[in-house]
């Protein structure tokens, strides 16, 4: 079956999976800025349909979209220089200037208004955002066409293009409109999947539309990422070939227990979909601090009374042989063993609030203490992973009845502490040069009394020690 390149891309506005209100905002902005200068910044998580939304609305309003693609400096195929060199900034400026004024020669189009689209930022701008701001300022003065910048939200601050290139003061001074798109909602995602499914069906008669529950699972695993959902729909093996690929199912056969049937099913589908289901660090900390158990782990004698409570507030006992966590600690540890030390700090800072008895705290804190010792284990391969495992399991096992109240997850004070300590040391160094005792003695013995004995000399700055 042969599919066109952009077979899944929505063509008309109704097909867009993006929220209608946001689409309305974009199209009203576009129609307000026809043939005048204007900058729109569009942000949102990956795969929420930013580009598709712009292209669709532009098409419906009769704009011609002209996208910037950062050119290669050299002709790699022939291995030779392409003659003269023009730097990326100049090329980008050229693009902005010419595209906003002159219509494309190669496109026969009745509409005269064009729309510039930038999704691909030349590297120089990422290194030196000031240059980019200059270029934008120039653009505002000279151009006659609107421009749209698209940035994906990234969790990592270091990679966040939006923060670097479009700081708030620049947004204010250049009059940049900022529209934030949210992840695609479940209903809209399902609609889009159905549309694509029917399209695939029309292309090849052998294609069977996946069952609704599979569509639901794809939606779940996609986390509002339409592009990903589309790919997994396309890749989803057909019912009859499933058995060939279903490794997860085979693995589950040996140890399947009646109460964990649901779990194996879930595991299968997630692994079949293959989405990297790594959660954010705060989310993972939450999973450790509020451990959830499966029904089977319920204490037999107390189950009748406890069931009256809310579903996730059951009293659980790790000693029951069938006890299982909803979130496998192994997965959590695997995901964070590269940043084990900071994850450990997060757990330590926040675990206290979720515990209800001091006995469990004592047990958990001993595990954390062991974890810290293991973390510094020198020469032991994988000591970080082991240490994190000890900490995560220690906290999860001991927290039998978590306090299910909302607590903000706080960052650890460890680094802050180190910083204050060094600052204090340098301060004492500068205040008491040549003083014949060490810092610790100075701070624990001498200074506390000095504040009693001679406050004035401390406030005067330098202390005479001779």
């Amino acid at each position, binding site marked *: 079956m042969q599919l066109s390149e952009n077979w899944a891309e929505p063509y008309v506005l109704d097909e867009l999976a993006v929220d209608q209100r946001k689409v309305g905002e974009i199209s009203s902005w576009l129609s307000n800025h026809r043939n005048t200068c204007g900058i729109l910044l569009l942000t949102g998580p990956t795969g929420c349909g930013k580009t598709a939304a712009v292209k669709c609305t532009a098409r419906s309003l009769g704009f011609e979209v002209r996208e910037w693609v950062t050119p290669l400096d050299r002709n790699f195929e022939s291995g030779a220089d392409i003659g003269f060199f023009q730097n990326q900034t100049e090329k980008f400026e050229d693009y902005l200037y010419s595209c906003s004024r002159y219509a494309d020669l190669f496109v026969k189009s009745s509409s005269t208004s064009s729309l510039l689209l930038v999704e691909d930022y030349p590297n120089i701008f990422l290194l030196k955002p000031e240059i980019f701001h200059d270029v934008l300022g120039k653009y505002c003065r000279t151009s006659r066409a609107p421009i749209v910048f698209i940035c994906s939200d990234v969790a990592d601050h270091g990679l966040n293009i939006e923060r670097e290139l479009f700081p708030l003061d620049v947004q204010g001074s250049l009059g940049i409109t900022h529209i934030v798109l949210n992840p695609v909602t479940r209903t809209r995602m399902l609609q889009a999947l159905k549309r694509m499914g029917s399209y695939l069906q029309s292309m090849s008669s052998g294609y069977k539309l996946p069952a609704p529950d599979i569509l639901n699972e794809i939606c779940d695993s996609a986390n509002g990422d339409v592009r990903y959902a589309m790919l997994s729909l396309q890749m989803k093996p057909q019912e009859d070939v499933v058995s060939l690929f279903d490794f997860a199912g085979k693995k589950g056969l040996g140890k399947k227990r009646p109460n964990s049937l649901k779990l194996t099913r879930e595991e299968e589908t997630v692994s079949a979909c293959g989405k990297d289901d790594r959660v954010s660090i705060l989310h993972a900390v939450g999973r450790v601090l509020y451990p959830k158990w499966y029904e089977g782990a319920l204490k037999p004698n107390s189950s009748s009374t406890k069931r009256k409570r809310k579903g996730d507030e059951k009293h659980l006992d790790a000693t029951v042989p069938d006890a299982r966590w909803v979130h496998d600690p192994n997965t959590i540890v695997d995901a964070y063993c590269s940043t084990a030390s900071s994850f450990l*700090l997060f757990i330590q800072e926040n675990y206290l609030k979720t515990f209800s008895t001091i006995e469990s705290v004592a047990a958990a804190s001993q595990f*954390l203490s062991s974890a810290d010792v293991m973390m510094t284990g020198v020469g032991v391969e994988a000591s970080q992973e082991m240490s994190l495992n000890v900490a995560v399991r220690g906290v999860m096992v001991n927290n039998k009845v978590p306090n299910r109240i909302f607590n903000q997850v706080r960052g650890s*004070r460890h680094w802050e502490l180190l910083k204050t300590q060094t600052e*204090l040391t340098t301060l004492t160094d500068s205040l008491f040069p040549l003083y*014949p*005792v060490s810092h610790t003695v100075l701070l624990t013995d*001498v200074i*506390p009394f000095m504040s009693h*004995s001679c406050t004035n000399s401390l406030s005067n700055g330098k202390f005479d020690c001779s």
Partner: protein
Amino acid sequence: MSLWVDRYRPKSLGVLDYHKEQASQLKNLVKQGDFPHLLVYGPSGAGKKTRVTCLLRELYGPSVEKLRMESVSITTPSGKKLDVKTISSNYHIEVNPSDAGIYDRCVVMELVKNAAQTHQLDPSGQRDFKVVVLTEVDSLSVDAQHALRRTMEKYVATCRLILISNSTSRVIPAIRSRCLGVRVAAPTSDQIVSILQMVCKKEGLTLPLELAKKIVDKSERNLRLALLMCESCKVQETPLQDKQEPILPQWQVFLRETARTIMHEQSPKQLMEVRGRLYELLCHNIPIQMIFKGLLKELVSNCDMRLKAAVVEEAAFFEHRVHQGNKGIFHLEAFVAKFMCIYKKFMEDSVIDMF
């Protein structure tokens, strides 16, 4: 102006107030010309540093007191640049290796090498070796101590080491056997009383015996602390009174209150509060060992006899872990949690026993 501690610090071996026999032995040592490496150890505030300074003066004359502070920059094998504060005169160099943290090994080696490689220009009348004084050797890592062992032997012709530590238990045997151990014991109560009275006399004050005893008691035979307390008493009230209470450093009072908080209630919420207080102490650079010690002392004094052994055992366990790990608060908190747990159980049991 300066503190009494500094003003009345003895400057030569002849005028030291106690351990006079040892002082004369040190003098003889210097007279004989040759001089081994020294390991000076003793509790805090016993006068180790004073004794070493006197010794240096005996060796090189008064010009050794012209000190200057230098920041030596050292490149570690991993390429990190470190600045280490040193105090030096023409004849000696003093450094606190614990400033360099985990890089103490390179710092020690580099400094000893530097000091040893520069020969004395004018050997007439002067010693033909320099002295490197390392303070707080207890916190020197085992790695650094092993490195020191080799360096000590190699440069013995041009360089002598004086190591200062609180106890020899953290110094590896290899180093201990290469040094002449000089134990500076804490002065006795009577010695402190007489020193305090002598200092007060020089200041034109009279120190009532009652108050002097109180100060000695509170200072735990730490002469530095005793002198500082005495001076703060003077600021508090002159002339000095019998009934006056010597004041403790703020952090000790704070630590005492923390212990009281722990005894008051045993719950995760209370532990949260205690954690805040512990962070506060750590932020003021109070060493974690001292927090452990102070806390334990307060807690144990309020405990039933049966609990004491268990509590001390826990404290020893977690204090050891502080040295193994690198985030002290983890272990401190674990100890407090453990104590709360033990204490709560004991209280509950005793309530049951009553009925």
